[in-house]
């Protein structure tokens, strides 16, 4: 193991929920080490517990056993240094775009806040929509607001739980390309949960492939392909097929 501390380390994590009669085992001995600045995707069959895993890492749920360390400190709850981007869109509908993006900057001076907000508004391509309310925006634009709100708070880590799941295909492709562009500029550690294998291969440095429930890390696939990634290249297809195989096998056995 390297000397530098992991951004996130997950150790012997177990999770079960009380169910009717017997407990439902969701996670079974999950282990992971994520380096600072790394873009990691977690893929797995739907309902396998990958969102649960991210919620435990994010401090929103407590694991049954095992521990999560962020920068060597155990996670005790949500923390502004790690911002969560929610699947169901956590943008506040009563605030306009500017106020939403500046939400994590309550303690900053007015001028600095305005500067940061306009920088990230531009980065996610929403310049001109500062005064719009979320109800007036498309789903993709709302997700951009949430990403800008996360970035503006300048966290060390961003957790993303299927953030593009509700978007249409073309918007999704565009959002992925923009996310990679932003990540290359900001170099935040990103943990990104998705059920979309293509998405994982397009985005990640490494892909954690989860098994069916009770889930564990079945395989870690390193995607050492240059960005932006050519979706027709042999390297891309090989990685994609490897993840398919890892998942397919797990589906076949279960």
């Amino acid at each position, binding site marked *: 193991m390297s000397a530098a501390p992991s951004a996130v380390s997950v150790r012997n994590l177990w999770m079960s929920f009380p169910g009717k009669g017997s407990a439902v085992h969701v996670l079974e001995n999950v282990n992971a080490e994520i380096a600072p600045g790394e873009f990691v995707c977690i893929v797995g069959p739907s309902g396998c517990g990958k969102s649960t895993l991210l919620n435990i890492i*994010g401090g*929103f749920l407590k694991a049954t056993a095992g521990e999560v360390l962020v920068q060597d400190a155990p996670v005790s*709850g*949500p*923390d*502004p240094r*790690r*911002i*969560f981007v*929610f699947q*169901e*869109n*956590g943008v*506040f*509908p*009563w*605030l*306009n775009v500017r106020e939403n993006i500046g*939400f*994590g900057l*309550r303690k900053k001076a007015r001028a600095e806040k305005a500067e940061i907000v306009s920088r990230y508004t531009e980065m996610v391509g929403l310049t001109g929509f500062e005064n719009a*309310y*979320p*109800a007036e925006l498309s789903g993709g634009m709302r997700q951009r607001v949430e990403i800008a709100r996360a970035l503006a*708070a300048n966290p060390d880590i961003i957790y993303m739980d299927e953030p593009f799941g509700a978007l249409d295909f073309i918007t999704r492709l565009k959002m992925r390309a923009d996310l990679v562009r932003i990540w290359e500029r900001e170099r935040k550690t990103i943990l990104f949960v998705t059920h979309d294998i293509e998405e994982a291969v397009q985005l990640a440095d490494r892909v954690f492939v989860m098994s069916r429930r009770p889930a564990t890390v079945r395989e870690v696939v390193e995607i050492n392909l240059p960005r932006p990634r050519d979706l027709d290249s042999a390297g891309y297809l090989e990685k994609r097929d490897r993840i398919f195989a890892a998942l397919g096998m797990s589906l076949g056995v279960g």
Partner: protein
Amino acid sequence: MTENPQSTQRPVQPAVVPYDWLRLVLPCGVGLIVLLVWDLCVRFSGSDLFPKPIDVARAIVELIQHGLLIKYIVASLFRVSWGFALATLVGVPFGLVLGWYSRAAQAFNPMIQILRPISPIAWIPVAILWFGVSDAAPIFLIFLASVFPITVSAMAAVRNMQPVYVRAAKNFGLSEWELFRQVIFRACLPQIITSLRIALGIAWLVVVAAEMIAVNSGLGYLIIDARNAGKRYDLVVAGMLLIGLIGLGLDFLVRKLENFDEVRWGYANKS
């Protein structure tokens, strides 16, 4: 294919959408029919006590001439405003707290559910005992009538709130007070405004009963007084009509609140 060369041009949109006159004509038409039916019924029945619409109009003119119309309306609005404002100031924060802290709800909810079904009219003797002959008695009754609906719907609004807002807020490290003020209150505001609309309707509804006691002004007083002093049913119906019209105006004003950007998202049918 024969294509009209003009069809590729952008169709010209009319600059101003013409006003939808039917929105005004239809309700006015219903109003006129009701007046007509009312008039005919009184004429055919030959009643000399129940007034025709024209008698009611004359009664209202009489009130204006005596300088009583504005005085009574202001008196009633004054009591409703105070009772309703107090109910809002108590009910909204109390309801939000009950919605957020389930232990508080467990403690207080049964008591609320016991007090809630007691009609404000049943409180009249108690109100006289406590507040005597003063404006405080009707204000207290109006407060009682509107505080429970406000509290209960603020509580329900918190419970129905999308949990993702609270999770996002906690992620940004908000204190408990900031969470209440900036997220829970704001997320519940659309539902709170709807409940205020309903509660204001109830408050106005109760004003007649509240003004039966211990006061000598107001639209409720007008109705009771006109009945007791000389069976002036034209004034009774005038008072009823005025209460209805002012109630319509109040509802219209509260509805305006629903158009603000900060809450409009909460009303699904608004485009």
